[in-house]
């Protein structure tokens, strides 16, 4: 098969799931990180049986109109706040019937960080057998781009036109505090790491949480073709740490950033959401430093990334 640019040149092979998870005809914006994520997930899934729960978010709109659906697996669109609880029911019945089905929640940052936080926390506390994936576009994309608690400080949104004041919630920290078996952040620009984590999370039991920085040209006011590069810049600059947490206590850093000021500058300048809001590389540095000090403290050791 041919190379897929969306997969960074990675070719589709026989190991891939035969049917795509995101079929052609979907209504994602060009350059949407969620599309890339679903392509990666397809590859990671192989022939495992999946069921998917999608709360109100861009992915739900992407599903398309009845009777067609762009999802290549059985899926249920839940209410905004209920993804993890609906998945709880689906997973519980799969368990009762001895099925190998992997139940996945695919939720945006709104349904994860905000309205669905209680639901998510409860399912994590009960250690339900669910893989919860948050594609974080740092904005309510579905409603046209308002601030969420995942929106970083300094980003302009339709409800914070002069830039958001508050910093982003530490979602992995929150999930790790639940002592769930597995929590990890994923960089779509590092495909080997992404595939390894997706596969690990698909096979693990209990509650697993994956946080994916998902470029959103519409909300980020960036070029669609720049999405993956933006993620890479976020990782290089230390803005988006790529790490995993086992059982809420064992922290492993997967990619060591360059902490490059140039990368940070590029990251900010390639998106119009950071224009005229007063955010600069200098203003971001202290927070990056503080968080990395914390991560080093927690991890104790650093695993350098494989180059992609």
């Amino acid at each position: 098969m041919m190379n897929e640019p969306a997969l960074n040149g990675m070719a589709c092979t026989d190991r891939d799931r035969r049917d795509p998870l995101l079929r052609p005809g979907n209504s994602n914006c060009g350059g949407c990180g969620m599309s890339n994520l679903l392509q990666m997930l397809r590859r990671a899934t192989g022939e495992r049986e999946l069921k998917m729960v999608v709360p109100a978010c861009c992915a739900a709109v992407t599903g398309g109109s009845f009777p067609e659906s762009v999802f290549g697996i059985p899926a249920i669109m839940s209410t905004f706040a209920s993804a993890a609880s609906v998945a709880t029911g689906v997973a519980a019945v799969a368990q009762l019937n001895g099925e190998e089905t992997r139940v996945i929640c695919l939720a945006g940052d709104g349904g994860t960080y905000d309205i669905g936080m209680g639901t998510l926390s409860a399912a994590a506390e009960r250690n339900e057998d669910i893989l919860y994936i948050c594609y974080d576009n740092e904005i309510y994309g579905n409603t046209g781009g308002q601030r969420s608690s995942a929106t970083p400080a300094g980003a302009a949104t339709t409800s914070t036109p002069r830039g958001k004041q508050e910093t982003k919630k530490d979602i992995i920290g929150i999930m790790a505090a639940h002592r769930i078996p597995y929590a990890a952040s994923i960089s779509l620009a590092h495909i080997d790491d992404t595939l390894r984590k997706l596969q690990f999370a698909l096979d693990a039991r209990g509650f697993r949480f994956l946080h994916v920085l998902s470029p959103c040209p519409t909300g980020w006011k960036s070029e669609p073709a720049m999405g993956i590069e933006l993620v890479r810049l976020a990782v290089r600059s230390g803005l988006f740490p790529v790490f995993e947490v086992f059982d809420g206590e064992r922290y492993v850093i997967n990619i060591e950033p360059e902490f490059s000021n140039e990368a940070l500058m590029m990251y900010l300048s390639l998106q119009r959401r950071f224009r005229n809001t007063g955010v600069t590389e200098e203003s971001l540095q202290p927070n990056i430093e503080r968080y990395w000090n914390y991560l080093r403290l927690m991890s104790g050791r650093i695993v350098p990334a494989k180059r992609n």
Partner: protein
Amino acid sequence: MSVELISANHAAALSATLAARANRTARGFCSGVYPITPSTECMEYLCGQEIEKGTVVRADSEHNAMGICIGASAAGARSFTTTCSNGLAYMVENCVAAAGYRLPIVMSVANRTLGPPWNIWADHGDSLLLRDLGWLQLYSADNQEVFDTVLCAFKLAEDPRMLMPALCCMDGFILSHTMAQVDVPSQEQIDRFLPLTDIPHRLDKTAHTLGQMEAPHASVVHRMQHHQAMLGAEQIYAEIQNSFAEIFGRRPADPLVTYRTEDAETLLVSMGTLGVTAERVVDQLREQGKAVGAVRVRMFRPMLDTGLRKIFAGKKRIAVLDRDISIGFGGVLWGEVRGFADPGAIVQNYMVGVAGGDVRPEHMLNLLADLEQRHESGAPQIVEVA
């Protein structure tokens, strides 16, 4: 068959437990529950049961209790939950979803006033919130009815011609916490009565999506199908009554329970336990030679207009008693049924026991005296009771 002395909450939970066990050879049972007075005892009982191929998830809120039921039902299991009052109000968004997915989830509601101001006593205003959402609604007047109704509700809701959620309502505390004798069939009988849950559109292996976006024309078709299906409930319920009678040797209550209505000139129309008091009042007035009868609306959704029209035919005075108030309008039941009376009949609305007041026979006698001297119906009246 055994006779047990149990509360209505317990009766609902026991009924659900037996129904759950009856599905052990199919895809099992899964329920999400969250406590709220006065329905708490029902979830507590359920949490104490051993259910082969069944699980009860202690949820973090009513919204998610229904979310879990939605997931379970969408995965093909039998599902049940219980709540009331503000819990039900909190759950409403997912109740809309459950109906929209056409999932046969059964829910027991121990009717309670919505707060604030906080009030834990009986009022039908909570379950009536679900009036327009596509849930079947059944109201019971005693513990036996509660037990039977939950059992029948599974069979009704899961019938391939229906496939929609069902609400089984009981008056909070008045029934939920009152012990009474209940005939409990054996598991073997219930196995024979309840077919295995088979939800044709469950999430299986094929790639179909539940609850996705729809264009207006598709949505209206789905609404219409749901509406049409619900209108068939009376007929299917009658079939269920027959099979119930055949297996258990007694008949569950009708969707419309009439009491000495045939030769009556005046009717008392109500739902839930008000109907029992109304029947006692009818007895009392009949002794004085007054032609009074009572109607209890057990099936509120679908609304049985033809049946009510028949019962109302020729009746000159009808008192509709509501244990609820639609603010700015009057009683909900009155609004629903007044159009079924003969032209010229006086259909007067009395809201009694709103927010939990204790409704006694003298209150009904007083309002009937008021109805007696009316020449036409007036604005709905709240009868203050305590």
